[in-house]
């Protein structure tokens, strides 16, 4: 059969069914008894009265703090089996206190559950944000030369020697850090490593020894990564003493390498 033929056929069947039911339905009336009424509700006896969970008190002291300070939450709860505070405090006992460090204004909710019911209470800790710091001063900062003068350390040497001894290593290591910092923030700055001697040897030999000390100090700084092309050495021999007493204390002060600002 073709499609259109089939449609015709199904439509005919449906119409036939509807006509049949219409014919039968009124004629199928029997007498059916009404359904029985539902049974009367069974009245249970009233259960014994169980108190509801109750939050007696929930406070925060102090209620207003500066950022970084703490506040203490205190609570008292009755008739609860399961008690907790949010914002990370967690499960709590029925009485208690907890120190909290909110970084911004926070409302804490205490939830108490019990067989008799639940209760919640909230308390708010207000956090004051501190005033912003004053803007950086627009006055003159320390110049590179001032930084060098105030923060650099001299390296000291033994008599007639130019070896970098342990205390000199420490001083020069600190100086290396200082120089890298200064060079980074001041691309035009150069430094001079001066070599000095105590008064005892001849001026001519001390001129050469002072130069060797300055060289040794510069090499140490360069090995630690300081830019060598920004360091110049100059020997003053014994021509520029720090002190003039004839004792070891003064002589040691003069046996040194010293950093100063270049041009």
């Amino acid at each position: 059969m073709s499609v259109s033929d089939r449609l015709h056929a199904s439509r005919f069947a449906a119409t036939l069914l509807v006509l049949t039911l219409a014919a039968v339905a009124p004629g199928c009336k029997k007498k059916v008894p009404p359904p029985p009424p539902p049974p009367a509700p069974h009245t249970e006896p009233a259960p014994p009265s169980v108190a509801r969970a109750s939050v007696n008190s929930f406070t925060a002291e102090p209620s207003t703090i500066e950022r970084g300070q703490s506040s203490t939450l205190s609570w008292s709860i009755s008739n609860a089996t399961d008690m907790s505070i949010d914002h990370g405090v967690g499960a709590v006992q029925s009485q208690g206190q907890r120190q909290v460090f909110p970084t911004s204004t926070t409302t804490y909710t205490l939830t108490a559950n019990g067989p008799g019911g639940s209760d919640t209470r909230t308390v708010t800790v207000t956090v004051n944000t501190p005033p912003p710091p004053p803007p950086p001063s627009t006055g003159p900062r320390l110049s590179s030369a001032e930084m060098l003068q105030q923060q650099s350390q001299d390296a000291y040497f033994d008599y007639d020697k130019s070896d970098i001894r342990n205390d000199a290593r420490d001083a020069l290591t600190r100086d290396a850090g200082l120089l890298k910092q200064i060079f980074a923030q001041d691309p035009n700055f150069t430094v001079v490593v001066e070599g000095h001697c105590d008064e005892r040897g001849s001026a001519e030999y001390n001129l050469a020894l002072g130069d060797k000390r300055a060289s040794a100090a510069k090499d140490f700084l360069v090995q630690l990564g300081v830019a060598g092309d920004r360091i110049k050495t100059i020997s003053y021999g014994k021509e520029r003493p720090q002190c003039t007493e004839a004792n070891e204390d003064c002589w040691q002060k003069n046996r040194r390498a010293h950093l100063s600002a270049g041009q």
Partner: protein
Amino acid sequence: MKRTILFLCAGALGLAQNAEIKRPIVVTPGEKPPIAVPDFRGAGDAQPLMGTFNRVVWNELQNSGQLKLIPKTMYPLTVPQQPADFRPPVNGKSQGPWFSDWSSPPVNGRYLAFGYTAAQNGQLTLYGWLYDVQQTSTSSAQLLAKVYVGSPDESGSRKVAQEFAADILKLFGGSSLMGSRIYFVSDRTGHKEIWSMNYDGSDQKQFTSYRTITTFPVVSSDGTKIAFTTYPMRAATPGHPATEDQPKIYVHSLETGRKLVYLNQNASMNAASDFMPDNRHLLIYSTASAGISQIFMTDIDGGNFHRVTNTRSLEVEAKANPKTGADIVFLSGRGGTPQVYRMNIDGTDVARLTTGEGDCANPAWSPDGQHIAFVWSRGFEPGNFNIFIMDVASQELVQLTHGAGRNENPNWAPDGVHIVFSSKRGRNTQIYTMLADGTQVQQLTTQGNNEKPVWTKGTQ
């Protein structure tokens, strides 16, 4: 006309204006020739100037350290003033003043200086002779016969006296210090600068005014140049203060005072230590090439820079043998402490001259190339130096100063007899001279601190 008369007069006395000086006298080593130097008298207007004249002649001969001057109290009463005053004895009998007056006791002299002065034609004229009074005739006795002229005043009197004394000293193979100057470092202006003065400390004059640290002077043997070390000042720029540049060698003319061209090596340290005897090269110590102080030689303008030492130690203070220029002495730390070494100029044949104990410094050749003076801390704590002289060939030592303290930078006078040095004997450091046997110490400076003296040749 006047000149002709003078010449004739001189001729009559057996003198020429510039009489030749006879052969130098051979001096027995270790002995100082005994010489009598009586006071000269001046005719007429010359007499008032004779105090100065006699004092200067005496001091020049005395200070030379080369002669034994017989005290005037020993002299006979009659003093000859010209050769004609001498009368040889006849048949053993005295006929008047004779050589034996001076060669016998109590004078016991060998040489006699005599003469007189006269003021004429607007000038002071000195007629001077030196006789060997152990000879037997005036002709064989005469060693010097000369006329000297100067202005008829104190200055002229001083001049003729110095010239006469210088000629006498020349006869004994020595030289006068007349005209020689000492260059040194003084801080009396507030900065270390180069100064100069006469060899007796007079006429102190400032030579440099660089207003920084200027030091380590060295002078050429022909007296024409000076080299020194200075820290040239670099002017302040906006945001940067004035700073000192690394030590550099400067060369100046001693004739004009002007700075000459010297090309420094690009190094952290350059210092001059000596001119070569040819006066056309400099010995320097520098950190060029090696990064540590080594000895180099350069031309007088800094060119032809070439290396003399080759070590990893501090090498400084090279001085050339003034006689040969073929070897040097220098100070080296190669043995651990600073010691004096000798080496050929080509770097061969290195030898340590000092013993190795204590610290040494400042080697300096004598003009004859046979001795060096140097300083040494032997017997004292480091920093206390005394001056020693060493015979280079035998390494025999003589100690010239003996105290604790600092005696430094000894340098020889052109006469090979005097040494100039600095010493800290009080609060300050001053410059002194002495004879090369340590005697006759004389202080030349008093103001500020004065050091590092070097002695240029005189005009004689």
